[in-house]
């Protein structure tokens, strides 16, 4: 391997434990959630131990220090994605980020304000989190939901882009990298078409932001969402980024303390961005933990992480192609794809594949991956999915390939 990240694995305490059958942990489920380095765990703990206080509220030193830590976390996240600090909103998860935009866009007083006759575009390979909020927005407002299909090799079918993105399109909500196929979408074609008709582009960066370097300006999208817990960060924190001038024109979606300008019994007005999108005492310790995760990722280097995962992906694809009865679901080549590989084993249900792998200490995800419409389209009950992060290495791939052979012999399929 040309990129050696092996020295970092020891920073992740979970690899010290043994799993089923007394085996060491081979964690290939980072697409679901990533493991956390000690620096992230202790950043969160240290917040509680030394500066815990409600931000932006108290008149005391702890509140000052907590506010400083929280706002520095915001600045750090902003830098990580090439954004301005005030464009970053802390949410509880990517799911909340995406729901929040969908609610805001449907709230009276927002510009744009989605209404009957408008069209919202998604794709067949969206995660439920970037599909159902838009279905619901369409239902609430009378707007129409349309979508890009997928091609046989698991890519977006943009051949009919001009009939999908039309003059009526107000929102295009699309995944950056498929959590099933690993496909990275050809974003610039989509943003150009969307912006040409004045539509806003919402990017689900759940599977991209944790794995390669992102710059919202270069991506030329209007909103972006990702989750802390897939980015080596804590659970309970997500990011919603929006262009400053776009966020300013939106009504908030969540109401409560710290997001107001003035309040009477009858009505309220809102604070400035990003405050107006952060109602209540925020997830301060988690924001600080996410910031530590970003520091960690920066030290390793996002480009190295990407390259490393590319190498692992290539290795696994090549290994899988040599096992009869194993079918990769998604692109077989390395063009525009990341470290998420779905496959099926003829004659063995994915749940059973996963169970046998677990016996050898290998953690994968099985099932529909919160992408049911895609599974139905592919006529599959589910897949087995291996996904990487920086702590994986070639040995993990060998172990997986070997264990897949054991799956086949255990279930007496193939030769």
């Amino acid at each position, binding site marked *: 391997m040309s990129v050696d990240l092996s020295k970092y694995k020891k920073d992740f305490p979970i690899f010290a434990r043994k799993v*089923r*059958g007394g085996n060491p942990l081979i964690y290939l489920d980072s697409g679901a959630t990533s493991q956390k380095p000690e620096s992230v765990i202790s950043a969160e703990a240290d917040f509680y131990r030394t500066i815990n206080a409600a931000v932006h509220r108290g008149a005391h030193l702890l509140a000052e220090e907590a506010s400083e830590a929280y706002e520095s976390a915001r600045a750090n996240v902003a830098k990580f994605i090439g954004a301005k600090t005030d464009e970053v909103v802390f949410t509880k998860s990517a799911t909340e980020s995406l729901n929040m935009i969908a609610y805001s866009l449907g709230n009276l007083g927002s510009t744009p304000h989605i209404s009957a006759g408008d069209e919202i575009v998604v794709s067949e390979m969206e995660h439920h989190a970037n599909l159902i909020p838009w279905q619901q927005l369409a239902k609430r407002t009378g707007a129409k939901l349309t979508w890009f299909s997928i091609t046989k090799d698991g890519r977006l079918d943009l051949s009919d882009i001009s009939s999908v993105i039309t003059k009526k399109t107000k929102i295009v909500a699309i995944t950056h990298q498929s959590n099933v196929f690993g496909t990275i979408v050809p974003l610039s074609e989509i943003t150009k078409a969307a912006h040409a008709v004045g539509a806003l582009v919402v990017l689900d960066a759940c599977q991209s932001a944790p794995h390669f370097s992102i710059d919202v300006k270069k991506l030329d999208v209007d909103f972006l969402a990702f989750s802390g817990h897939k980015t080596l960060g804590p659970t309970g924190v997500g990011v919603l980024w929006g262009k400053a001038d776009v966020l300013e024109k939106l009504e908030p979606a969540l109401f409560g303390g710290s997001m107001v300008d003035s309040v009477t019994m009858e009505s309220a007005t809102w604070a400035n961005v990003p405050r107006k999108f952060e109602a209540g005492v925020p997830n301060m310790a988690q924001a600080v933990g996410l910031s530590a995760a970003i520091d960690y990722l920066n030290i390793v280097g996002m480009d190295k992480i990407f390259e490393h995962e590319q190498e692992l992906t290539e290795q696994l694809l090549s290994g899988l192609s040599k096992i009869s009865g194993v079918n990769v679901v998604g692109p077989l080549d390395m063009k525009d794809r990341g470290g998420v590989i779905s496959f099926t084993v003829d004659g063995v*249900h*994915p*749940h*059973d594949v996963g*169970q*046998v792998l677990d*016996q050898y200490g290998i953690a994968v995800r*099985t*099932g*529909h991956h919160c992408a*049911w419409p895609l*599974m139905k389209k592919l006529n599959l*009950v*589910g897949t087995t999915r291996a996904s990487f992060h920086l702590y994986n290495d070639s040995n993990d791939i060998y172990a997986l390939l070997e264990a897949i052979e054991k799956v086949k012999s*255990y*279930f007496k399929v193939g030769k």
Partner: protein
Amino acid sequence: MELDSLYQEVILDHYKSPHHKGLSDQKDIQVHHKNPSCGDEVTLNLVMDGQVVKDVSWDGVGCSISMASVSVMSELIIGKSYVQALAIFDAFFELMQSKGQSSGDENLLEDGVAFAGVSKFPARIKCALLGWMAFKDASTQVME
């Protein structure tokens, strides 16, 4: 190997050659159950003859545990009285909650005791129960 306590030979046999699979034409009721978290689905036709379970037939997609379990269940309860069938259901349900502490009542559960090992794998219990819950639902609807 721990795995062998989960995948008993009986289970793999029923998975490869499921019994009573294929929906009957005749039915008193049809129910459709699924496990949204893993996508397993089963459709079950039930025919009662007074107090007796006259026929169970089913179709479905799912893992070895869920498919074998509905196969074993069909085999077990066809011909039993409603009351007996419920007693068998209860025994199986209890076995699933036993966390590996029970080996099951072989008189009552017959091939069903092969699922005793499932109770040690919390994520698989709902697989084993899928067909049983469908039967419980269907029979309750017909009988009550």
